[in-house]
């Protein structure tokens, strides 16, 4: 009997399932998502996948060796504001930490319009209202010393009054608790005693990091989505087990791996935004297969454009995230996003008579004019159909026809206003969107001290392959990969299937140079032991366990920290010079040569260990034969497409993406169509089908590689 790896991803509309057998063969299924009880949709997608491989659901579940699953239960709870009623216990006098929000509106890096136009902005609705926050007497200082003992009477009455007020979850965060966790632990114990049914989350367990605002936000959010997420994963886990699935269910997490159900119950926050992250994980795997260590992953959908960066075979991670203007601590694969998508509205700034694209989006409803769902404002997609990039009569594999006339009418009105020709305008819309996205690609790399020219760009999402060849060219990127046909559209599920079990443990200990090796080693050993215990609990055999340690360091007196990787889990006195050298190297890579101050005192801040279990990986089937002969019938038609490079429309060949063979090479301009997207190759570009059936675009054939 074959065994399978299985990845599942719940989207807004569909739940995707990817099965991969021992030989690498992929089976894909989709079922409608079932909001309210997502487990139903998950089981239905599995049932359909089982049908395709000829197995009843219980038999299929019995033959799956790993089932990895991304859940949106937490994300939805936040978007719909349907989380739990949460109470917070904190250090007396510091009740307002998450209301003060460090005196900001939480908008840095967000929509510039909200930043500059203050009357349009506001703080987000509080996750926990002031009436559900209780300060209790206790205090720890910067040395981790208890300077005020915990007043347990106050703790008891705080818990009782919060329970009286009807809370469903309790968050606990004290100042400096990451140095001295005993007070938080004591509150948890007292809560277990007097309110055993309460979901309780403590900051020293979830995010033992330096900075009470981001730490409190983390526990508040964790408690907010806690009860819902716990219900969901517990329920799904139970139903899968009942139906025959035996190994531990794996839940994808935002740091880029998976966690067991048990961990997801304690730290549901880890599941937040894990969907886009799975796309990066999938790219990481495909990159390894393709021998590409440096990848910019892009996902352009209807409303947004997401960019992730993989450098040297590792996904770039950030340790502070943002949701609803709230910043919180949690290690997370860094996916930057902007509001340019197929649905971005095209408009004219009346005052200045200039053409603008986005950031407002027509979304899925009413959507672009050409979707015939009542949209009246032209969008990027409308420009795409007018230009001929998209086939109005055969969109989404023929399941939908687009209203080209409507789109043209909408854009023509704008063209008239600007005194431009329709095509000129539509092409301008595409270019503005493409160049804006190129700016984000640049920003995502340059801000990490990386040069986009050293990268290959992966294009996902329905709208991505239409525009990425130009976006990449503008960012100076030579090659674009559109991953193989069907897998691309279920990429996140594929990512889930290829993810490793991962625990990122962090601990803050602020130490200044000259460093005490023993202290450093103590922290590293604690972190390693914690990770080891977690993997053991996950049932991972010792041979499959791996560890990677790093320290966030900075110049003493400076704010900026950089993550310095260390390649061992204990260091010796003789390694200290190397540690400094690594810091300087990374610092200068990020901030420029000569930026580091020679001889300055250094500071270690956060210690981190990633404990992961290398899981079985999908194996992709590469073609053994390559051919430059394009099969007859692969070219399905010609249509008139406007090319900005030529400033005119020309009859251009259209290919069926499924008919092309590994080894085929086609010069632009042309369009390759699949059921989920159109790959647009401009004049001066070239596309090849590689051995894995990926489409690989050379974005500028005149430039040397």
């Amino acid at each position, binding site marked *: 009997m074959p065994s399978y790896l299985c990845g599942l991803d719940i989207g807004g509309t569909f739940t995707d399932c990817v099965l991969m057998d021992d030989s690498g063969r992929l089976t894909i299924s989709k079922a409608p998502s079932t909001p309210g009880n997502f487990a139903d949709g998950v089981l239905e997608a599995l049932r359909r996948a089982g049908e395709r491989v000829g197995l009843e659901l219980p038999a299929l579940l019995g033959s799956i060796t790993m089932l990895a699953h991304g859940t949106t239960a937490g994300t939805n709870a936040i978007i719909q504001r349907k989380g739990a009623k949460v109470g917070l216990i904190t250090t007396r006098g510091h009740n307002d930490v998450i209301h003060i929000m460090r*005196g900001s509106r939480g908008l840095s890096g967000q929509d*510039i319009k909200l930043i500059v136009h203050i009357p349009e902005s506001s*703080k987000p609705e509080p996750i926990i209202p002031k009436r559900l926050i209780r300060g209790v007497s206790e205090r720890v200082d910067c*040395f981790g010393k208890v300077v005020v003992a915990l007043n347990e009477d106050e703790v008891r009455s705080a818990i009782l009054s919060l329970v009286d007020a009807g809370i469903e979850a309790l968050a606990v965060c004290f100042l400096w608790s990451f140095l001295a966790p005993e007070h938080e632990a004591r509150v948890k114990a007292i809560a277990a005693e007097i309110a055993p049914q309460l979901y309780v989350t403590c900051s020293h367990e979830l995010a033992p990091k330096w900075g*009470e605002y981001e730490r409190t936000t983390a526990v508040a959010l964790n408690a907010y989505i806690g009860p819902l997420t716990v219900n969901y994963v517990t329920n799904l886990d139970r139903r899968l087990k009942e139906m025959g699935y035996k190994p531990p269910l794996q839940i994808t997490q935002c740091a880029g791996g998976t966690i067991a159900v048990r961990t997801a119950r304690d730290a549901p926050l880890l599941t937040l935004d894990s969907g886009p992250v799975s796309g990066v994980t999938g790219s990481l795997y495909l990159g390894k297969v393709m021998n590409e260590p440096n990848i910019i992953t892009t996902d352009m959908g209807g409303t947004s454009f997401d960019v992730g960066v993989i450098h040297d075979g590792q996904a770039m991670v950030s340790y502070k995230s943002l949701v609803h203007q709230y910043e919180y601590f949690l290690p997370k694969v860094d996916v930057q996003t902007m509001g340019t998508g197929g649905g971005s509205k095209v408009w004219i700034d009346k005052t200045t008579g200039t053409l603008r694209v986005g950031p407002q989006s027509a979304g899925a409803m009413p959507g672009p004019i050409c979707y015939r769902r009542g949209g009246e404002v032209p969008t990027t997609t409308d420009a795409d159909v007018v230009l001929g990039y998209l086939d109005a009569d055969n969109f989404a594999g023929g399941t939908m026809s687009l209203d080209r006339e409507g789109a043209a009418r909408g854009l023509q009105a704008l063209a008239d206003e600007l005194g431009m020709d329709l095509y000129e305008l539509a092409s301008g819309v595409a270019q503005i969107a493409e*160049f804006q996205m190129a700016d984000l690609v640049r920003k995502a790399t340059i801000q990490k001290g990386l040069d986009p020219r050293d990268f290959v760009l992966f294009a996902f999402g329905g709208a991505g392959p239409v525009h990425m060849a130009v976006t990449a060219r503008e960012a100076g990127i030579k090659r674009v990969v559109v991953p193989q046909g069907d897998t691309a559209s279920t990429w996140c599920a594929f990512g889930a299937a290829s993810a490793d079990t991962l625990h990122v443990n962090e601990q803050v200990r602020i130490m200044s140079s000259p460093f005490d090796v023993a202290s450093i080693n103590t922290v590293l050993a604690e972190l390693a032991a914690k990770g080891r215990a977690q993997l053991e609990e996950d049932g991972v055999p010792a041979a499959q366990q791996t560890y990677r340690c790093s320290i966030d360091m900075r110049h003493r007196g*400076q704010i900026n920290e950089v993550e310095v990787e260390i390649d061992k889990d204990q260091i010796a006195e003789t390694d200290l010079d190397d540690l400094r050298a690594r810091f300087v190297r990374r610092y200068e890579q990020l*901030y420029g040569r000569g930026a580091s101050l020679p001889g300055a005192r250094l500071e270690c801040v956060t210690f981190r260990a990633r404990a992961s279990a290398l899981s079985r990986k999908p194996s992709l089937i590469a073609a053994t034969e390559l051919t430059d002969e394009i099969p007859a019938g692969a070219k399905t038609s010609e249509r008139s497409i406007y090319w900005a490079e030529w400033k005119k429309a020309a009859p251009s060949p259209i290919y069926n993406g499924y008919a092309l063979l590994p080894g085929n090479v086609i010069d632009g301009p042309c369009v390759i169509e699949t059921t989920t997207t159109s790959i647009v190759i401009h004049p001066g570009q070239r596309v090849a089908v590689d051995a894995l059936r990926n489409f690989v675009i050379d974005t500028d054939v005149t430039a040397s590689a």
Partner: protein
Amino acid sequence: MPRISEITGVDFDGVNHPYVPPKELRISPKLKLHRDWDQNVDPITYEVVRHNLWQINEEHGATIQRLSGSPVAMYALDLNPSLLTEDAEFVYFGPYMQYMSGVTDTQVKWTLENRSDNPGIKDGDMFLANDPWVGAAHQQDVMLLCPVFWEGELFCWVTNCLHQYDIGGITPGSFCPSAESAYDEGIMLPPIKIIEDGEIRRDIEAVYLRASRKPQLVALDFRAQMAGNTTAKKRVLELIQRYGASTVKGVMKKIIDNSEKSFLEKMARIPDGFWQDRTYIEACRPGDRRTHKVQLQLRKEGNKLLFTNDGTADQEGAMNATYSGWRGAIMVAVTELLCWDQYFAVGGALRHVDFDPVPGTLNCANFPASVSTAPIQSMEISLYPAYNVLSKMIYPDAEMRKDIMCIGGTSQWPATLFRGTDQWGERYGYLLIDPIGGAIGAFSHADGINTGGQSRTPICQLPNIEHTEQSFPILFLYRKELPDSGGAGKYRGGLSAESCFIPHNTDVITQDTLSSGNATPTSTGMMGGYPSTTNAYTFLRDSDILTRMADSQMVEDISEVSGTDEMLQLRQENFLQHKSDVYAVRWTGGGGFGDPMDRAMEDINEDLEHYAITAEAAGSIYGVVVGADGKLDEAASIARRAELRAARVARGGRKTATLEGPVLCEASVNLNARQHSDGAHWACAKCACDLGHVSHNYKDGCLREDHPVADSNPLIGDPSRFIDDDVCFRQFFCPGCGAQIDNEIAVTRDEVLADIHVNVG
């Protein structure tokens, strides 16, 4: 006293008098300017290049942020990058410290006029500059100006400004509260070529660093500034290579032209008129117990705006700002209220804005006045009235009305300057940065934003308490938002906060205060809105806090601690805080908008629910009745508000004349101008009661009542603790219906302010 435009025979050259750029710059023929640009850039290229230019400026700022070593600068984001044309018109400046770019163009213009001949402005040069008479806000704000050349011609400028931790002067940190002149303050550098042909001139750098107590930090920051300019310059050159110099320049000019066009369209939508505001600075030097009047006038005639400061007090002590500081402060408000939709491309608007202050005043000081405190005193006190006059100017337009912002929090900064030996055994000096958490004032359509920061720095963040405690030997007892700290109004001003701390892991801290706005509220309301709390220092000596800590009985407010209350003055120097001395610092909140008695009942209920106001304030200021359950009794509240209004009319004498003519202009939320037989008359917006001819002050047609200033906000105390002047809260009521039309905070001897005059009818 005469304004600049009325003075003859004085050279406004940036030496003894402020530099005021002439309309035509006098630039040496040795410097070739790139003056060729494409007038007809197509809309697509325009949008692509425009977006790129914005990104360049953003990348410029991000580079400095990553590299700067100074926590003070970084938490307060006390920096700003700019992009200017060859002749120093603003293309873009960043969303960081808004004061700074306002003083940038004057620096560049001065450099063009005074450095183009000798030593010359060449490719690869950068100029360091911090002379407040040339154009810095204060000496700590050091600018680095970088000319960008293309084919031998000066194409444009990229510049940045970054607040320095210490550049000398008699007080560590270079804010010098007791300075009597600029000679007591940090080093001053008129633009000086510090980078030549891409290389740092070590001799010049050594001069720059010599005066600083923290030369290493300053050196690190200088490199950050250099890297920022280098990055931006490189990106501009790449853009030129890609699109051509005349196209890129064409886009730059069009950005400015577009912002000008947008500005002109806005000007066309609002009536001409005259608006005025008044506020006060307290204590210009240790021991001073006077108020120093600050007045701002805005006159609009067609497309032209003219700002003046007639009636402002003389320069004195250590509270002053220079011309460029005053102008920069006003530009913040111009930018945020009128140019936000053009992404702060203020260059176009500036073509139509004139600044004509009176030299020798506290916000247009002549050399060698002390100006090191300018950004937290004179500039702040110049900025916030600018919000008021501009807001009143745009109110008549229903669309622009949505851009109105009342005065925000920290309208004067209650500085806590402290020093000593830290828990690591090192010497330190620090300015408590907490007041940057400010508050945003009310809008014309919504409440302000509680602890929403300072509007003049739209994206900054306070350090976490854990960060401050790690670096300095203090322990915070609390940092919390204060009920009633926001100004009352139909829309409430944002709440501000208070921080309270004791020394920890040290025996003693040496403290200085530096503040104003502790006696008279500086975050006044608008159009009937009430002021926020004042700043406040509370200092309890020999308290029982250590016993409380030992007993696990911590506090949420300094009033819970027992100790000897010591009244700190506003410039008290070198006082000691020992281990059991508890120190709380409160900063001003946001001003309110509109009459508090017009505030919706459900909003007041929300305020009570979320501790934004107290039940007492609900009764005394909002005029409502709070039941035993802590919720409003709506029927009783409606009746009470009616009674209160009727009582005002009864006290002042009812007038019955109402106006029937059409509304010509909605001058404020409470005040219309209506057509009448002898021209336009002021009318109550609620009952149309006649308030007199528009050529008169509408306040003269109102019933006036003067109250103690403490009545305007429950957190305001007795002004006589700090100043000898009497201050009052004047309210102006409609004699027809008793509604409040407006109010003002004034020193009793000052006449009623004529704040609104519109040319209609």
